[in-house]
Structure formats: structure tokens, C-alpha cells
């Protein structure tokens, strides 16, 4: 089982967990929840939104979960990333990995998260408590 989804509605953790199914050879289940926090690089965050490329994000995310599912000892992988408007405490991303042993489950859960952050076309727009806002991670510079 290898699933990647974008979700415009709050991630339902019980539903997400069921995406993984079950496997009698599974000895470990590791899940990661990324939450919206109220600060970023010293600035107080009040809310944020995620935008994703509707075609390329799903394709890139699906390729990543499929690559993870093909790793030795991995028995199931699923990942869900929110899009749209979120508030502090919301789950922004969820990843679940089933594996025969805990080492593989921890390792591939973390690796998949890192690759989703850097390889899937999703962007975060933060709103700050001082009334300003901005996209994270990139500044357009004058020549």
C-alpha cells in the first residue's frame, strides 16, 4: 500500500491510519504529524495556508511514497499534506509507515518527510500576529 493525498479539509487521523491497511509481517508502525506552530524564525505566526501544484504535487508525492514502499522491510506507506487555510495546532502533514522492524519504520518515515518537504511543489504562506504575511523559503531579489 502506497498512498499520497492532498487534503483541503482537516486530516482525520483514524482515516489516515486505515490507508495503511494491515500486514501480519508488520512489527512496527511509525506515524508523524506535522503541526502548525505559532512561531517561525522568531516571528509570531497566527495562521498559514498551503498551496500546491494540483498535478505535479500529487505526481511527485505519489512517486516518493512508491519509492518508500519499495524499500526493504517496508510494508505500507501513506502520506497526506494539507492545502488551504490552517490555524495553529492543525495537522499540516501526516505520514505513516509500516515495517517489519522499528528501525526501518523510523528511518523511512523521516526520510519520506524530508523528501516531501524538498521535492513536492507545495508552498507555505504565513500570516503573522503583527498583520504582515509572507511566503516562506524564498525572496525575489533585485539585480
Amino acid at each position: 500500500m502506497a498512498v499520497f493525498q492532498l487534503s483541503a479539509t482537516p486530516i482525520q487521523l483514524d482515516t489516515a491510519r486505515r490507508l495503511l491497511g494491515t500486514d501480519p509481517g508488520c512489527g512496527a508502525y511509525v506515524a508523524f504529524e506535522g503541526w502548525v506552530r505559532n512561531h517561525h524564525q522568531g516571528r509570531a505566526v497566527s495562521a498559514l495556508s498551503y498551496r500546491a501544484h494540483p498535478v505535479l504535487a500529487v505526481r511527485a508525492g505519489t512517486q516518493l511514497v512508491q519509492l518508500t514502499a519499495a524499500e526493504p522491510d517496508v510494508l505500507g506507506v501513506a502520506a497526506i499534506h494539507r492545502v488551504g487555510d490552517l490555524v495553529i495546532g492543525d495537522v499540516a502533514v501526516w505520514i505513516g509507515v509500516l515495517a517489519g522492524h522499528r528501525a526501518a519504520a523510523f528511518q523511512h518515515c523521516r526520510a519520506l518527510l524530508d523528501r516531501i518537504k524538498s521535492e513536492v511543489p507545495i508552498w507555505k504562506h504565513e500570516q503573522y500576529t503583527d498583520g504582515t504575511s509572507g511566503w516562506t523559503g524564498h525572496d525575489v531579489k533585485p539585480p
Partner: protein
Amino acid sequence: MKELQVTFWAALGERFGSGPHHLRSEAVDCMALWQECCMAQGIDAATQGLRVARNDEFVDWGAQIQTGDRIEFMPPFAGG
């Protein structure tokens, strides 16, 4: 002259306007189009960390463009 549909995502959209913009250009490849857009806005045409897609496929900056293509410029991804 090629007729193109050009979109700028996230932070790039704030500078160029998100689009999609319907542009006419003589640019032969994605790099030339990017440089053309940057020159018009008076900003640095550096591509470090940026990605470009043509017709819903990631491509290299040297990818050729043809009339009718949909070109999308993207800043570094920032999910999670």
C-alpha cells in the same frame, strides 16, 4: 512569435503576478523566457533553487518552448 501561458507560483507570483499570463515571446527555451520576464520586472534572473515546468512536467531550464505551451516558474518548495 510564440503564444504562451505563463504562471508564477508562491513568492514569484507576488512579484510577477500569479497568472496565468498569456504572453507573446520569441524565447526559444525556458531560461530565455525566464530572463525575459525578469528583465521586464527589473529583478535578478538567477535560477538557483527555482524549478520550471512545461505542460505539467518538470523540465530543465534549457527545455525548448513552442507556441501553446504552459510554462510555470516555481520557487523552492516549502511544504511540511
